[in-house]
């Protein structure tokens, strides 16, 4: 039995258009799966369906079973909001592309981070403050005291995403969903945040569902990958096989475009001393 089993997932819009059609995949405990595709392929919608967070009016059918071992296995599709609330944060959590959407602009970082930690671990006072500091240190924020007292607008985009990751990890979820978590970041910051995610996921034995449009980013963090196009899973397999020997014509065109764009840079930098 896997941690997450998605079976024949369909999502329709309010006016009946098929947005996701017959998508199936599973993730074992501690495993890493990527969803790759271009805009409109349904990758973010799949993540929202797993979280039970589909926008009002959209209708999901099929099956999404989450079984963390700690809580009884739950069918997400059609589950009551109260049931889902018990799972979100604790069993599974999500980090979005834009960290500002995950942070309250009017609350200091320390206070925002304290909330899930207090709820999950029942800490207060000095112990809670120390746990917040530790959580910030874990995501390798250097000036912890300043960041803890800062409002979201007072810290950089990279720091905000680190804070969003710290909040996501505060409840020690079994499954972390990361939806384009580094797309809004500068390239050097992206590299740091990816390395951080990689290390934290390994250290905690979390399962990872990673969503990206960027094959190279995906290849660095994921083991297996599902290629989505217009809501259909067109190909699935080990990420290395997909980028070196894509079978489906769409995957082939995707890999070819990425290689062609990256080719000039590779040629230049390969000759570098």
């Amino acid at each position, binding site marked *: 039995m896997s941690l997450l089993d998605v079976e024949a997932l369909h999502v329709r819009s309010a006016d009946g258009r098929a947005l996701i059609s017959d998508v199936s995949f599973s993730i074992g405990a501690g495993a890493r799966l990527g969803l790759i595709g*271009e*805009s409109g392929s349904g990758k973010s919608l799949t993540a929202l369906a797993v979280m039970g967070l589909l926008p009002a009016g959209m209708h999901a059918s099929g099956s999404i079973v989450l079984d963390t071992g700690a809580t009884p296995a739950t069918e997400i599709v059609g589950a009551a909001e109260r049931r889902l609330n018990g799972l979100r944060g604790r069993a599974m959590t999500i980090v979005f592309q834009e960290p500002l959407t995950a942070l309250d602009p009017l609350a200091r970082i320390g206070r925002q981070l304290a909330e899930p930690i207090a709820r999950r671990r029942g800490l207060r006072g000095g112990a809670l403050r120390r746990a917040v500091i530790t959580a910030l240190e874990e995501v390798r924020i250097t000036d912890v005291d300043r960041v803890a007292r800062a409002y979201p607008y007072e810290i950089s*985009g990279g720091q905000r995403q680190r804070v969003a990751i710290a909040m996501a990890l505060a409840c020690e979820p079994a499954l972390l969903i990361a939806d384009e978590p580094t797309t809004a970041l*500068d*390239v*050097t*910051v*992206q*590299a740091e945040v*990816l390395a951080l995610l990689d290390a934290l996921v390994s250290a905690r034995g979390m399962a990872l569902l990673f969503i990206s*449009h*960027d*094959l*190279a*980013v995906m*290849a*660095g963090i994921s083991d297996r990958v599902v290629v989505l196009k217009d809501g259909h899973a067109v190909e699935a397999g080990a990420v*290395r096989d997909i*980028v*070196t020997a894509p079978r489906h014509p769409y995957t082939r*065109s*995707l*890999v070819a*475009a*990425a*290689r*062609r*764009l*990256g*080719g*000039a*840079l*590779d*040629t*230049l*930098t390969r*000759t*570098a*001393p």
Partner: protein
Amino acid sequence: MTAPILEARQVGFAYRGSPATLADVSIGVPAGRAVALVGESGAGKTTLLHLLLGLKRPTSGQVLFDGNVVEPRDRAWMRTFRRHVQTVFQDPYSSLDPRQRVDRIIAEPIHSLGLVRRGGSRAETAQRVAAALDVVGLPEDAARRYPHEFSGGQRQRIAIARAIVCEPRVLLADEPVSALDVSTRARIVDLLAELRDSRGLTIVMVSHDLAVVATLCSYTAVLERGRIVEQGDTAQVLGSPRHPYTRRLIAGVPRLP
């Protein structure tokens, strides 16, 4: 080496009461080449592009076009300048007026620059618009449609058609492909390369994407915190980077196995 078509000489820029956004920036853009301004957010790339476009006045130093100082306050001069120097922005969703048909959007520079005589033939304008659409690879019937009917890549083609309709010599583009999917991105890069080669169009492109820069641009300037830390032929700058910041930028690019 021929004189640059567009040049920044020891340019500085600061918003009132703020520390300098740009300090002592000098760069010459040779005619007919594609030049990249690279760096991370806050490095001053877009500010430099705005100075080169004459949208802002440098606090110190000068911007020159064909050896003449760009003077944003001189409207008549700017009109001639704008005829030769056009721009494309990053987001093809916010840079096109959603209430205008594509032909009116593309014809806008023709009207505002007075390139077709007042009361002059509509046919002449239509002809120019059709030619521009053809150059960017859009069908003729695109002219009568609205922006929302097009994908991101097609919209960026419309923005490029608008920029080249008055046959400018220089195209300044701010992250023109960052908002696009990878396959679309490759095709727009191809289009820009074709415009450079077939029309001798000079391109100055702001980009954080070194893969795109290596593909399109033969000259690269690297900005960090408002200063150019390294500039030269792209093969040199990216192939044998001298500055540690350039090396960090290159090392950060994710690679396919």
